[in-house]
């Protein structure tokens, strides 16, 4: 299972980087979402997967068969933060589109060109 998920993480990162390098800002945001989720999965996988075991001590399970709860807690936090960031960047993109009427990253040269 870990191997499959590890490959998935790799695929998501690849797709994310590809989308980041596209010219459209919307595709760029989709790249951000891919990267964000790839990272979340990576953190989730970091403690290893222990299938079919509870994460919390309920008094009956022995400690040897417990899933590590910490990465799950971390990933929950990270997902929420990632969601907030994506919402903000979407709002920013909308505002940017309203002001400039363009979705092309190549048009973003104004701040760098003038001396």
């Amino acid at each position, binding site marked *: 299972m870990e191997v499959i998920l590890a490959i998935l993480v790799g695929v998501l990162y690849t797709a994310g980087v590809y989308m*980041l390098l596209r010219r459209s*800002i919307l595709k*760029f945001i989709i790249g*951000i979402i891919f*990267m*964000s989720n*790839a*990272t*979340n999965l*990576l*953190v*989730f*996988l*970091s*403690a*290893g997967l222990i299938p079919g075991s509870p994460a919390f001590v309920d008094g009956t399970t022995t400690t040897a068969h417990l899933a590590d709860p*910490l*990465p799950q807690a*971390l990933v929950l*936090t*990270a997902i929420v*933060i990632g969601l*907030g*960031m994506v919402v*903000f*960047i979407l709002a*920013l*993109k909308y*505002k*940017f589109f309203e*002001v*400039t009427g363009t979705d092309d990253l190549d048009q*973003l040269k*104004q*701040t*760098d060109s*003038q*001396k």
Partner: protein
Amino acid sequence: MTIVALPILIPFALAISLLVFRTTKVCRWVGPLGSFAIFMFSISLFFRLKTDGILTLNMGGWDAPFAIVLVVDYLSALMLMVSSLILIAVSLFAIRFLPDDIPLPRFYFFFFTLTMGMNGAFITGDVFNLYVWFEVMLISSFVLITMGKKKEQLEGGIKYLALNLLGSFLFLAGLGLLYGKTGTLNMAHLAEILKNDNQATLMNTSAILFFVAFGIKAAVFPLFFWLPASYHTPNIAITSLFAGLLTKVGVYTLIRFFTLFFVHDQHFWHNLLLIIAGLTMVTGGMAAASYYETRRILSYHIISQIGYMIMGLGIFTPLAIAGAVFFTLHNMIAKTGAFLASGMIAKIKGTYHLKEVGGLYKQNPLLAVLFIVPAFALAGVPPLSGFFAKFMLIKAGIESGSYIITTVALLTGLLTLYSMIKIWNEAFLKKQPENQANQKPIKLNWADYVPLAILATASVLMGIFAATVFTVTMEAANQLIEPTNYIDTVLRNKTP
């Protein structure tokens, strides 16, 4: 000790209070007085530290390393103190200089959430908690940088946001892998586990992810592009706030991580840090020399100065670390001061372009004096703060035999001097260009000078009392280089 959490709680309470008191009249008091309260509290924390040793607080009633630990040592206390001094200056500056389309209450709200994130990053002893504070800081800065919604601001905002988000992902990936390898995210616990670690290659995979992530935040050599692309776009009060604080948080975390627990492969890391430091200094300095817009010159100049801080970390002797800390503190004050001065020039003349301004020395000698202090401090002219900071770094470089980086640092000092003298000559000494001369310059109110005067005084005092600051930074450096005390205090609540 509960008071350790207050640097986070005070700005949080202030931000909440700003949701209740939404009139500009009240905010004029809440902003500066709140910043002053944070400053006074940081000072009291610093003196507490002197008597009681390293202060810790385990959140949620768990024991370390399971609890999220808040730790205040000398480095954290110094950063808290100087950053809150900058908060005072910028909060006063914002009252006078924010344009009408940015409401003061809204500015102060994000100002204080930014402070909360920054203070949290300074005092946390947990890697994941650090990530959370970074995000708090980032989202506040995203809002601040796009406030006003001008076209170039949105453009700069997108660039700023893109690279900083990428940095956050790398940070998160690094901490995930680190947790997988060590099973802990408490910094002191990590330090204890990694002290005798002999799998340097394995640890380097995490370390490099952290390095790139913090390198993006600190704007070191190959990763700095977002900074000059975005820092000149927002209002000058916001730029000054960012210039003084944000990159320095990145430097702080680099110093913390690479002295506390990533100490395994010293040969590789210190060489890498020195190479990057040299390139950062030179590229920043050269780019600054090629521009004629004050905000751009100063933005590139931030990058150049980050190189000095990284250089101290790369040399890695107590004197060098102390020099890096001293330099960071001095740079926060002087850099913010220089940005405030450029904002005041722009208010008088209506433009940031040096070609179009001039004759300010005759018109406004007070501003000239107040500009020359931070500018010469940045260039490293004695007896101002920058001289002693550079002196410590260069002495450490010669003592440890790192001659190349020392030479680069000295030569970059000339580039800095050149940029500062360029602003001085163009804005103050040369005559007002003819085509702009009919424009009537705006007179400044006495209150406009106060923030810059505070920072200039602080810079002068840091130079005059350099011996005291030196002793304190040396103590901070000793705590960093020999982290046994830190680890013992955090993990076992032992007070030495």
